């Protein structure tokens, strides 16, 4: 058993990097929809009040204004609760950001089921599906504060639009402190040859814990952290399918159209192997905290390990 590790809110890492970027580059602006607190922009506002552009509760305008600011030479980080940012303003994201190639960083805060008990209106468990259907919009879900910081730095250096999916649910550090983000590249969190567990966001540490449980049963699981849902790391998936013969995906997202679907699209074309997709099973979630709901949907370490055991039994 590993000792309990300290948990961190990834938004703090995001904010720290954003403020460093803003200090170095006067064109960095933050745009929000009355979400200064929930996007952790209070420090930014205090230091650069004129560069904190709060459009009020108006997500369509939020995204359009972001596109216009980029056109005018600014580097906008457009921050809002992921459920509203992606759901309410999807057409603006498509037309004004992705299709127009606006250099806007969309930051979906408190994504997945982070809002837990507030209910399905506030859950953002469709954003992978909606956004990965769009061309020219990388979709990134960091797994810890280290990857969050690295992905935020990457976002500023990347010339084009992208979407950062940021949770508020505490997660332990998984990646080395000097980790550098590479778009479309999975990180190997654990070696193993009996199956591969692919996860991202708040599921990566649960996948690792599941691998520990499996090891105790004599199964060695490879664990891949796949922050980038689009463009996907096809090569790592094909190699995992070839070398381990079974793939299990875990995501804080509906099982329809998310990470699991994206992986399956690669597997079915290149290397068909037994696969299982774990996530929210296509329902509006009942009342409960994010961690309670993840456990409820079979995404506890024990639940993931159980699915993994069944999956390995299907291998030829």
């Amino acid at each position, binding site marked *: 058993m590993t000792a309990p590790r300290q948990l961190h809110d990834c938004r703090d890492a995001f904010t720290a990097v954003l403020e460093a970027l803003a200090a170095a580059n006067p064109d960095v602006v933050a745009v929000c929809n009355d979400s200064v607190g929930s996007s952790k922009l209070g420090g930014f506002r205090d230091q650069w009040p004129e560069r904190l552009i709060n459009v009020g509760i108006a997500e369509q*305008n939020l995204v359009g204004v972001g596109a216009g600011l980029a*056109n*005018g030479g600014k580097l906008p980080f457009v921050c809002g609760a992921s459920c509203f940012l992606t759901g309410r303003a999807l057409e603006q994201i498509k037309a004004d950001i992705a299709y127009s190639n606006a250099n806007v960083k969309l930051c979906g805060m408190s994504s997945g089921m982070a809002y837990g008990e507030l209910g399905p209106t506030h859950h953002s468990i469709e954003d992978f599906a909606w956004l990965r259907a769009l061309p020219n919009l990388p979709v990134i879900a960091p797994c810890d504060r280290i990857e969050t910081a690295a992905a935020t730095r990457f976002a500023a250096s990347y010339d084009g639009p992208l979407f950062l999916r940021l949770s508020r649910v505490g997660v332990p550090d998984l990646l080395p402190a000097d980790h550098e983000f590479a778009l479309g590249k999975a990180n190997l969190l654990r070696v193993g040859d009996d199956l591969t567990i692919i996860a991202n966001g708040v599921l990566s540490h649960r996948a690792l814990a599941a691998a520990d449980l499996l090891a105790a049963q004599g199964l060695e699981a490879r664990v891949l952290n796949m922050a980038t849902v689009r463009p996907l790391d096809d090569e790592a998936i094909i190699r995992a399918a070839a070398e381990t013969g079974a793939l299990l995906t875990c995501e804080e997202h509906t099982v329809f159209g998310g990470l699991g679907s994206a992986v399956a699209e690669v597997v079915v074309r290149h290397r068909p192997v037994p696969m299982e997709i774990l996530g929210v099973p296509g329902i509006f979630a009942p009342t409960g905290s994010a961690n309670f709901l993840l456990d409820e949907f079979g995404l506890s370490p024990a639940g993931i390990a159980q699915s993994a055991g069944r999956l390995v039994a299907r291998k030829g």
Partner: protein
Amino acid sequence: MEAHQLRAIANRIRRRDLQAVFEAGAGHIGGEMSVIDLLTVLYFHVLNVDPNAPRDPQRDRFVLSKGHTACALYVTLAEAGFLPKAEISTFLQPHSRLNGHPNCTKVPGVETNTGPLGHGLPVAVGMAKAAQLDGAAWRTFVLTGDGEMQEGSNWEAAMAAAQFGLDNLTLIIDHNRFQQGASVAGTNNLAPIPPRFEAFGWAVAEIDGHDIEAIIEALAPAARVPGKPKCIVAHTNKGQGISFMRDRVEWHHKVPNREQYERARQELEEAMP
């Protein structure tokens, strides 16, 4: 540029637009005819834009929010030197960069992609905000339809523009009183538009959107009202310049047959200044 020269250009743009729609067999000719005088004054008298430096950071920004009238924009951009004039004949052809709605990643002079309505004003607010942050002199103009103002996103943007005090932003509403399927009044009546914008904190002017001198005056820097975004309600006619199209809702996107095309062409030629 003088008003009589602008009238000649507008007439030339109308004729080329008519031909392009006729040859392509598609387009939105009614709304194109209603905005051409506005586009002409913008591109040949008001906008500080350079076809040789279409991305100059200090350029004025123009957003055609009613993106379905792209053909009129393409012809205007070609007339202004942003595109080869010969390219207009590729409008809507396979792999042409001139599709039914403008694409800023392919067509020089286009600032943002429009097509779905209610997108231009929010983007223009962002542009004007960027200039305000920099204390830059460049101005932002956005042209919408009147039916388009039924989209709620416009009113989100209208609130923000007033809140931010964007007096470097000018919204021109092409008030031709018709939308795709019927009159605006008979669909979801927005009239009277001016008091609505005044209530939202904007400075408002009403003009005849086919009166070149009136457009020039309304868009002059001197017309700026400190601290307030400007809304110009341009009273126009759908199908302006072609008698049998004028104020006829069916010409929103109807395509003239050969006989109608010849008749329209003749009318426009006779109206050449």
